[in-house]
């Protein structure tokens, strides 16, 4: 009796496993593409070269920080280290914050994968919103910290 009951459960497990494997095989080319693109971008546009792009004025630096963070493809850890170094070299906190926030929220390199899996419009609107939010958050964070003393 229990054997008869167990069979459909095993069948369901196998079916679920097949479905999951099939889903995963479908996303593998996208993952491989994103990883290969990340390597190529980091090799040709190393993040260390970013320091020279700043130093104009706060607003322009914030925009530069957001643009740079949006296309940066490295680990967030790299963003923190780079942000810390930029701050130590006199780049404004607004610019560094914009870079940090856009680094972890806007995904230009991952955009094709996001568009393919969650929809083009969703990916486009989400990334545009995140881009705008990065500048707003940078300004608000700096202003709040000044208020707090």
């Amino acid at each position: 009796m229990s054997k008869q009951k167990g069979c459909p459960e095993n069948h369901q497990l196998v079916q679920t496993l097949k479905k999951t494997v099939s889903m995963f095989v479908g996303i593998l080319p996208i993952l491989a593409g994103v990883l290969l693109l990340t390597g190529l971008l980091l090799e040709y546009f190393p993040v260390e070269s970013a320091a020279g792009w700043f130093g104009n004025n706060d607003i322009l630096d914030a925009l530069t920080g957001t643009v740079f963070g949006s296309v940066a493809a490295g680990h967030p850890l790299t963003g923190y280290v780079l942000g810390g170094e930029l701050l130590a070299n006199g780049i404004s906190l607004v610019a560094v914050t914009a870079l940090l926030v856009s680094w972890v929220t806007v995904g230009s390199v991952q955009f094709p994968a996001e568009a393919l899996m969650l929809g083009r419009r969703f990916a486009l609107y989400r990334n545009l919103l995140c881009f705008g939010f990065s500048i707003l958050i940078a300004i608000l964070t700096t202003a709040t910290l000044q208020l707090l003393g």
Partner: protein
Amino acid sequence: MGHGGAIFLLIVVCLYALASLVDTEHTLNALAFSTRLIYQLLPVLLLVFVLIFLSNLLVKPNWVRANVGRDSGVRGWVIAVIGGMLSVGPIYAWFALLRDLKTKGMRTALIAVFLYNRGIKLPLLPLMIHYFGMAYTLVLAAYMMLFSLLGGVLLEKISEDQIATEDEI
């Protein structure tokens, strides 16, 4: 998704071919770096595979609709915020799971909230405090959380009809 993934990979491979014509050494370095990334990503991919398997096995559309669906209320927002903060690994590894949950009824706004809160990296907060101080880290994290909710609401509002009718999903 169709053949979109394969076409994307093909385009990237073509970029590599072009780049190797310009600078072979840099391109080989890029390939080596990407290979290391793939190895680093394997544990996360395994975790995501297990989560998708469990989601397919245990998470039914009714549960998704009740907890992260349109009528999930505050609970849905809390799950999305905390889930985003706790999720590990690169963002693209999570797209497949979110896509699966979306087909089961997960609210668009909550997908956006989940993705945004991935920006708050709990394991990396000590490093951020080290570089920028406690006050900065707390203020920034609070604003990011607030803006994630605003982003979710806005995204759902401006794209509600269009996203619902997209053929890709």
